[in-house]
């Protein structure tokens, strides 16, 4: 049975070109980029190239790119750097719909003497900007807001927010792991101070990330030790993965148009096909401002984990905001923050596509999913009694 992979916001396939680029650095080219000899030096040269490619993807200067081990490390580095830079400031602003990499970190800091503000969203998942700006004060050390939401794909007006936050002289960070490579980002014309990137979300390898740090931003390292990354992140470089991330960034820049035309078209085909064939289904998120690859659909009167497991039997991979898949018995914090009724939150499925998906795959899902939903609905005590 072939796998139809529609869970690309969880992780992506490592592009074959990326893998090829990486392989020599696991074998013959094992040198340490910090070494004086040219055997190590040639690896340092490749890392320089990778840095330039990542920088180019987001319109940054190579000197503004710091390699890390993952998106989470990039996020933690950014937040802690801002807090250390302004030790007298004790207020952190973020949103209610952040990925746990930021949400849990800020909640944790809330127990360590920091004041925290979580900006709410409306039913489409759009931020309450008035609330956000109203919450800023002289005590605010950092504002951290994701560029695009991983569950719904909703894109936030980051440039507009960053400009407003900068006006107040406050550091602005964005967790852009879902956005980089999917939508155009240009740090050269931006007020963003720091931006997090994750390798495996853009067809690079797992275990590598990057943090963009605008020149002139006060910074202190999270990991202290050796002088790697100009002293901004100690630890021997994950050479193969960094080089892989460079290649992935190069490919992403090349494929961006395809992402926004071909992938968006497939996503729309999937969404339209499912909504036409399945009654009592609704889209979560803002269809007008959304990542080209993501759709989040709620199927009323059925439960998400059951849908996922039945799709699994058909080789279809997706994910759910249902309580039963989170292990917490509580549906997705993102959908709840949006006020999505419990009745819909439990039956939500996120499909996230990539350039490797085909129309045949999408058509297969459109054909196979409606009977799955119907089967589960026929078992559900609420389906027969639903309000007509």
């Amino acid at each position, binding site marked *: 049975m072939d796998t139809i992979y529609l869970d690309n916001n969880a992780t992506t396939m490592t592009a074959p070109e990326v893998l090829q680029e990486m392989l020599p650095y696991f074998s013959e080219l094992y040198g340490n980029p910090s070494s004086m000899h040219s055997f190590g030096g040639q690896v340092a040269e490749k890392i320089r190239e990778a840095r330039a490619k990542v920088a180019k993807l987001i319109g940054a200067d190579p000197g503004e790119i710091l390699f890390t081990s993952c998106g989470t490390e990039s996020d933690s580095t950014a937040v802690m750097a801002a807090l250390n830079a302004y030790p007298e400031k004790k207020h952190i602003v973020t949103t209610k719909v952040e990925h746990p990499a930021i949400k849990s970190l800020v909640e944790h800091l809330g127990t360590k003497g920091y004041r925290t503000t979580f900006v709410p969203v409306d039913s489409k998942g759009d931020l309450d900007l008035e609330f956000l700006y109203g919450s800023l004060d002289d005590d605010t050390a950092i504002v951290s807001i994701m560029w695009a939401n991983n569950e719904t794909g909703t894109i936030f007006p980051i440039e507009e927010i960053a400009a407003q936050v900068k006006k107040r002289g406050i550091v602005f960070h964005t967790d852009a792991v879902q956005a980089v490579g999917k939508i155009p980002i240009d740090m050269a014309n931006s007020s963003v101070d720091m931006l997090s990137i994750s390798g495996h979300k853009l067809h690079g390898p797992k275990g590598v990330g990057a943090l963009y740090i605008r020149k002139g931003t006060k910074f202190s390292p999270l990991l202290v030790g050796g002088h790697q990354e100009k002293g901004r992140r100690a630890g021997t470089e994950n050479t193969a993965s960094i080089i892989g991330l460079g290649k992935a960034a190069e490919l992403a820049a090349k494929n961006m148009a395809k992402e926004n035309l071909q992938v968006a078209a497939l996503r729309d085909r999937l969404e339209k096909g499912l909504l036409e064939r399945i009654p009592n289904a609704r889209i979560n998120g803002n269809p007008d401002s959304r990542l080209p690859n993501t759709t989040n659909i709620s199927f009323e009167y059925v439960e998400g984990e059951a849908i996922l497991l039945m799709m699994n039997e058909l080789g279809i991979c997706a994910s759910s905001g249902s309580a*039963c898949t989170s292990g917490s018995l509580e549906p997705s914090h993102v959908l709840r923050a949006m006020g999505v009724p419990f009745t819909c939150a439990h039956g939500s499925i996120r499909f996230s596509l990539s350039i490797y998906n085909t129309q045949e795959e999408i058509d297969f899902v459109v054909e196979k999913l409606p009977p799955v939903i119907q089967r589960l609905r026929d078992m559900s005590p609420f389906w027969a009694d639903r309000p007509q």
Partner: protein
Amino acid sequence: MWEYTGKVKDHFLNPRNVGVVENADGIGEVGSLACGDALKLSFKLGPDNKIEDVKFQTFGCASAIASSSVLTEMLKGMTLEEAEKVSNEDIAEALGGLPREKMHCSVMGRDALEKAISNFRGQEAKKADGQIVCDCFGVTDKEIHRVVKEHNLSSIEEVTNYVKAGGGCQKCHADIQEILDSYKGDVKPKPAPLTNIRKIQLIQETLEREVRPTLKQDGGDIELVDVDGDKVLVRLQGRCSSCQASQATLKDHVEAKLRELVVDTLVVEEV
């Protein structure tokens, strides 16, 4: 990915007895759309008063559907008296086990069965009596007390796994902890037996603190001579040594105190 047994998968993918029994004798409904799972169980008795037909409708995850399905298989052919004895553990066992986080699915099956039987007997299905502790899932203190007692639960997480309480906003965690704490005394391990040295120390302390001051008030005194097993050898002094009531003092006062505060098998003897 949950770790499901082959039986859970089988009952989920090929559920038995889905639907509502026509002209059912008893119907039980539990759960709601809001809490993410719900079950409607209906049954009909045969002429022999055994369950002849039983069907379910479930909204929920794979293990909720599988729990309902396997329950209907178990119930067929049972008398109501037998059915009443089916526990949530029986349901989980019939499925070859459930992940701990999914135990509440089997509890739901049992609850629906209980309601269906009450419904048949014409009893008003037991209203949730007691006080709501968990607002998110409408769980009462009585229900929490019941699972804590029945399953010897010791953490909030375990309570959540069984009845969902505390799985939402978590505001009720302090209340659940209080309920858990109220059972702590029941399972408190017995204190380890005293070492000989500790026993002697305790005896000495008790004599110093509790016994000597009262004896001294009467112009007497007591001295610890030796401890041999449970035998405490003492020497009475001052007016006590010549007191007619000295034996009574030893037994009623000294020995009683030592038994109360040290070990209840001690015997006091005068040397």
